[in-house]
């Protein structure tokens, strides 16, 4: 018997908008001028939110904070494709997704200042609390997607995580089950090239993360994660597929973490400044602005207005977050269980 090839995997990469702002006309999603402006405004708002968070942290007004700088297009572009009724299982570095879906920014600040109340998703959104234990939420997204199928809902489920999370057992178990049960779930992996100090090539020997989906029997695609159009297009297609019974998709957003891992980290200890400089030229906001300039969707006056509005919104969010009443000590008990045990009641009295 000769050896035969019983399968082979091709890995696709989608990019639409290049760093100079030139777009592939055929692949460009059918977005109106106002949608494109909205995307731009969300990118700017996300970046403004993030810059302020870093400043607040330096002043001791926020706790440890993970910057999204450089990853805005991966987050805004994907979330822009979602319906409000979809379910989202985030990791901890997707504030651009929150902002795009309309999650109140003051709650985000409250959370990163160390206040549980910032995790309370508004009733019209199904965004789960930030998942700090890397990758452990992946099976939950699959289960929620199976539940949506079971109920016959048209909702899709989106799960965000980083390149580091793909090394976890939960990633394998979750993706395998998604494939087996053809769950309506979209995995959005922000491959920002680093997991704290561990670079991509130390995280996996695979040349792409997208190809991992092949092993689970469903489609994986790499997109230029700094290209908001490519991210949007791929996510939309994956969501449509999920809603119409086509099963899961894995989207690898190829992007870069421009900042330190968190405010508790110093990336200069482990990564070369030239690498960071290279990626600066691929900036997601800059490239959309270049595109819009070509299309006469952008001018200085518009820029000023967008920045002013973003700054005002962020100012207001900070004000609201910081004027929230201090939580009472007894609140540490309030949601431990639906009902407190007699022992917890006794302990609660001790704090109050």
């Amino acid at each position, binding site marked *: 018997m000769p050896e035969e090839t019983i399968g082979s995997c091709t890995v696709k990469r989608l990019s639409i908008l290049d760093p100079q702002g030139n777009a592939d006309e055929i692949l460009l999603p059918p977005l109106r001028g106002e949608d494109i402006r909205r995307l731009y405004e969300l990118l700017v708002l996300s970046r403004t939110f993030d810059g302020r968070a870093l400043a607040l942290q330096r002043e001791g007004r926020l*706790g*440890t904070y993970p910057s999204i700088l450089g990853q805005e297009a991966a987050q805004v572009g994907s979330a822009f494709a979602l319906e409000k009724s979809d379910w989202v299982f985030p990791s*901890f570095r997707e504030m651009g997704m929150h902002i795009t879906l309309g999650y109140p920014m003051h709650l985000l600040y409250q*959370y990163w*200042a*160390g*206040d*549980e109340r910032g995790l309370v998703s508004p009733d019209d959104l199904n965004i789960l609390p*930030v998942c*700090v*234990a*890397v*990758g*452990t939420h992946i099976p939950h997204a699959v289960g929620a997607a199976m539940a949506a199928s079971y109920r016959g809902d048209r909702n899709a489920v989106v799960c965000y995580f980083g390149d*580091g*999370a793909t*090394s*976890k*057992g*939960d990633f394998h178990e979750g993706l395998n089950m998604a494939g087996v049960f053809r769950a309506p779930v979209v995995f959005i992996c922000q491959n920002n090239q680093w*997991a*704290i*100090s*561990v670079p991509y090539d*130390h*995280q*996996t020997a695979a040349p792409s993360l997208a190809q991992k989906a092949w092993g689970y029997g469903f489609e994986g695609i790499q997109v230029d994660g700094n290209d908001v159009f490519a991210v949007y297009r791929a996510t939309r297609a994956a969501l449509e597929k999920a809603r119409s019974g086509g099963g899961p998709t894995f989207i690898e957003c190829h992007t870069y973490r421009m900042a330190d891992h968190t405010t*508790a*980290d110093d990336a200069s*200890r*482990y990564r070369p400044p030239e690498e960071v400089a290279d990626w600066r030229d691929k900036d997601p906001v800059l490239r959309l602005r270049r595109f819009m300039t070509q299309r006469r969707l952008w001018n200085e006056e518009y820029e000023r207005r967008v920045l002013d509005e973003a700054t005002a919104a962020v100012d207001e969010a900070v004000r609201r977050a910081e004027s929230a009443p*201090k*939580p009472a*000590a007894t*609140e*540490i*008990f309030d*949601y*431990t269980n639906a009902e407190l*045990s007699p*022992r*917890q009641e006794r*302990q*609660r009295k*001790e*704090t109050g």
Partner: protein
Amino acid sequence: MPQMNMVQALNLALRQEMERDPNVLLLGEDVGRDGGVFRISEGLQEEFGADRVIDTPLAESGIVGTAIGMALYGLRPVAEIQFMGFIYAAFDQLCSHAARIRSRSRGRFTCPLVVRTPYGAGIKAPELHEESTEAFFCHMPGIKVVVPSGPYSAKGLLAAAIRDPDPVVFLEPTRLYRLIREEVPEEKYTIPLGQARLAREGDDITVISWGSMVERSLKATEGYRVDLLDLQTLSPFDEEAVLASVRKTGRVVIVQEAAETCGFGAELSATIAARAILHLRAPIVRVAGFDVTMPLPKLEDHYIPSVERIGKALDEVLTY
């Protein structure tokens, strides 16, 4: 004698153990190039090479699982879990394998492994970065649990843990990493596992504590005449030292950061009740964390046993 904080003491212990025994190697997330997020392994990759100070992918079960394999083969791996809240993925490996391989193979294979991890609250860190769930591991026969409370004990206990023939979970109180400086001998030394340390001596009360709470208990017992026992090793713990002190004082306050219910204090209480109850002059009092999900930074101070709460307990047993 040089002054060191716990970070420096642990770093020195690792360096000296690696120099002493070529079988000792380190693995974990960010332990190499970055020297560990708390810098415990700072400089060690440069000194010993990337195949001996191994930056792993982000995979706790993988880290502990491969470390078990190395230990079975004869190495002495020291695995780092970045924070105790992320050790749970490795729980299966620890409980189903590390803890039992000696027994399952009737001694043919053993697992001389150390799993180090920072634990405990008080650093205003994100969720799951402040866990104190040592009792889970104390419940597992086959695993030793060691908790230093300062730079001196950290260095000697870590060296002993690395030389120990069985798996050791080594919990480092994050809040104390840089808080305490004390004299630490430059030369190698070990502190035997299973022995408590008398951090303060007195006749009225036996205060039993470990790790992060020893520092608080020292503050709280100032002006009181207490035996302050720093257990150092929780499993196996120094029963005789506990009982001898209780027989002397007749009053017991246990201070643990972990949630009250089924914490290690419960084991201590039961042991004292079983073997020294007739010496007690007051009920045993536990000062513990509350039975709640560990709060985020805004509320964490309400969770952690405070000097005041410990003081109240001291007065309670004295005036009973």
